[in-house]
């Protein structure tokens, strides 16, 4: 590695971040929102979203790309919350209880997802995405048809008038912002949800520790090269399943943290955008499909949400229509994901070609190397 600064390489490495920075730098002053408002919003949103984004890290480490199947975990968290609300468990107890209920569901769903993705090597991302759609159907089957019918639900307040199925919107009054308010600290004009930050910090420590364990090392090895890892005696399939399982469990907890902050839950839609937001945040933070770090998560959450805060107002100011700003931020977020995927695929091919060119003299492994 040469240490000279190559602006072209830097730009190529951070294209998505740079574009986002430029757009947001324009949009912030245009929106006319006060710095204080924006900063407070960002503090809130870091607490709300960071945990969910973290759930994507391990599968990336294991070379499985972005785990769009994380929505399975989100669904598990929602089922946990429904039960906790139904049983009337208040505050942080309710959140912890929801996680305990969600845990076995998330582990089970994560295991299924891992098995499915192992059968779709090389196209994990699109398969995970479709798996999310499929499980959404199963989720509806359980929550809309079985809850209150096969699965007992005590409270008529949360069931539909027909007697079974959960209402479209679930009020989370019993647990609303209980984690955020557990240790809310006021610094100047800002309120920081310190307890939530501590949970996120704990997760960071876990991830740093996990990377050093045998399992974490195995995951990284698989991410580098499955063939070599296999011959080194690592059980590739099993390790990949574990990566997805942990990711699903983290997404489950992440969704509970997210929803306690929101204060109510769109029972059948809350998880639909989860994967998109988490993936966009991570990639906007400078991560790639093959490498993601803890700072990427924080940079990404701040950048993406900065844009989500200011864009509607900026659109309203520029075009007299907030909708334009909303469409624009969606377009930009989708484009960010597309761009990051393209850059990744591009590199992978360039590397493969370089490797092939290097081997061409020896003619040893023209077809053998994958």
């Amino acid at each position: 590695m040469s240490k000279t600064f190559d602006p072209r390489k830097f730009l190529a490495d951070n294209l998505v971040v740079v574009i986002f920075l430029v757009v947001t730098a324009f949009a912030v002053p245009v929106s006319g929102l006060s710095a204080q408002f924006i900063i407070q919003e960002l503090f809130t949103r870091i607490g709300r979203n960071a945990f969910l984004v973290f759930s994507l890290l391990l599968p990336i480490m294991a070379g499985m790309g972005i785990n769009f199947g994380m929505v399975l975990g989100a669904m598990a968290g929602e089922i946990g919350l429904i039960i906790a609300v139904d049983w009337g468990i208040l505050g942080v107890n309710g959140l912890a209880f929801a996680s305990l209920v969600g845990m076995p569901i998330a582990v089970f769903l994560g295991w299924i997802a891992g098995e499915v993705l192992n059968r779709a090597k090389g196209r994990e991302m699109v398969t995970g995405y479709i798996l999310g759609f499929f499980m959404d159907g199963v989720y509806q089957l359980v929550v809309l048809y079985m809850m209150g019918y096969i699965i007992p639900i005590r409270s008529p307040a949360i069931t539909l008038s027909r007697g079974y199925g959960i209402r479209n919107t679930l009020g989370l009054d019993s647990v609303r912002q209980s984690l955020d308010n557990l240790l809310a600290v006021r610094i100047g004009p800002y309120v920081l949800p310190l307890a939530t930050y501590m949970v996120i910090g704990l997760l960071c420590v876990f991830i740093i520790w996990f990377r050093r364990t045998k399992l974490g090392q195995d995951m990284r090895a698989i991410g580098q090269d499955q063939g070599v890892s296999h011959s080194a005696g690592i059980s590739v399939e099993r390790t990949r399943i574990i990566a997805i399982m942990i990711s699903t469990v983290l997404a489950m907890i992440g969704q509970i943290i997210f929803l306690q902050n929101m204060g109510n839950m769109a029972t059948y839609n809350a998880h639909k955008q989860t994967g998109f937001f988490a993936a966009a945040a991570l990639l906007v933070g400078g991560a790639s499909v093959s490498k993601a770090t803890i700072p990427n998560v924080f940079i990404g959450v701040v950048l993406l949400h900065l844009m989500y805060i200011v864009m509607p107002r900026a659109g309203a100011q520029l075009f007299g229509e907030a909708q334009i700003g909303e469409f624009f931020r969606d377009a930009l977020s989708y484009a960010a994901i597309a761009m990051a995927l393209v850059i990744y695929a591009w590199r992978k091919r360039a590397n493969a070609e370089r490797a092939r060119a290097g081997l061409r003299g020896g003619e040893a492994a023209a077809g053998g190397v994958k």
Partner: protein
Amino acid sequence: MNRLKQAVTDFGWPRIIIFLFVVALFIGAPFVKVRVDSSFTDVFNRFGQNAVLVLALVPMVQAGCGLNFGLPVGIIAGLLGSTLAMEFGLVGWAGFLGAIGLSLPFAVAFGFAYGLLLNKVKGEEMTIAMYVGFSIVTFFAILWLLLPYSSPNMVWGYAGKGLRTTITLEGYWGLILNDFLALRIGENFRFPTGMILFVILLTVLVGFFFRSKTGTAMTAVGSNPDFARAGGVSADRMRLTSVILSTVIGAVGILVYQQSFGFIQIYNAPLFMAFPAVAALLIGGASVNKASMLNVIVGTFLFQSILTMTPSVINSILQTDMSEVIRILISNGMILYALTRKTKVTK
């Protein structure tokens, strides 16, 4: 016996289950007082409405680009065509054909750019196609608001600008194919002859294309790239052609869809339109790297039958509206099955 077993494995048990499910739906319908004739009318309508969109997926599958989750790229071209035709005040056949004509240049241009991109990302086409589709749909949502459309039938009444979310085709070319030579048999059965003929025409054209020299070369690139390269076929060129073709048929597909549906839907409506089309193709027996005209016809018919019949039949049996859940499970389950199937020859 062995051969039968082999055939069943090749066909795949999910398809057999779905096929039996459809048969059961049609057999069960009269018992729960669902009219079979009006159901068939719906099935044929929806078949014609969706078949061309399904057909649009075939070229890319054959050329080895995988399932075209980026179908919205073509759909957007079609939307541009139909909104421009309306803006120019074209009605009737002039409107429909004009919409096709106006959408073609966009479809070719978009398909070209999209194809160049996909050529650079071999191996990751499907995920990227999906996000390219999402991006273009949301990006065009901005343009629908900003482009200087002025026809009062299309723009918001109070603002005088910005397209409506749904634009009616009544008085333009709504149902023009459906009504062409339409057959009415009895009280409740109506056969949309014109639309079905149009679908058959396009299917036959695409079928012939795949027998032509270019078509066979395209299939060769998809099924055996090394062999194709040895034969002097440029894989990149063939893939590019397939993407353009896919995009163009997609544009025509949404126009057929619109005239039958009666409305142009814009903004976020095309976001997820690729998924049911993909599901239909796969139900018809296609795999991620192989699809035929027969797959298109059979798949669309089966899938649309399920969509038409489940709400009425299943709901009257179970006394509850489960059709949405069944639709989600069947379509995504089918895609999932295809994606996780060990493919014989890839790379």
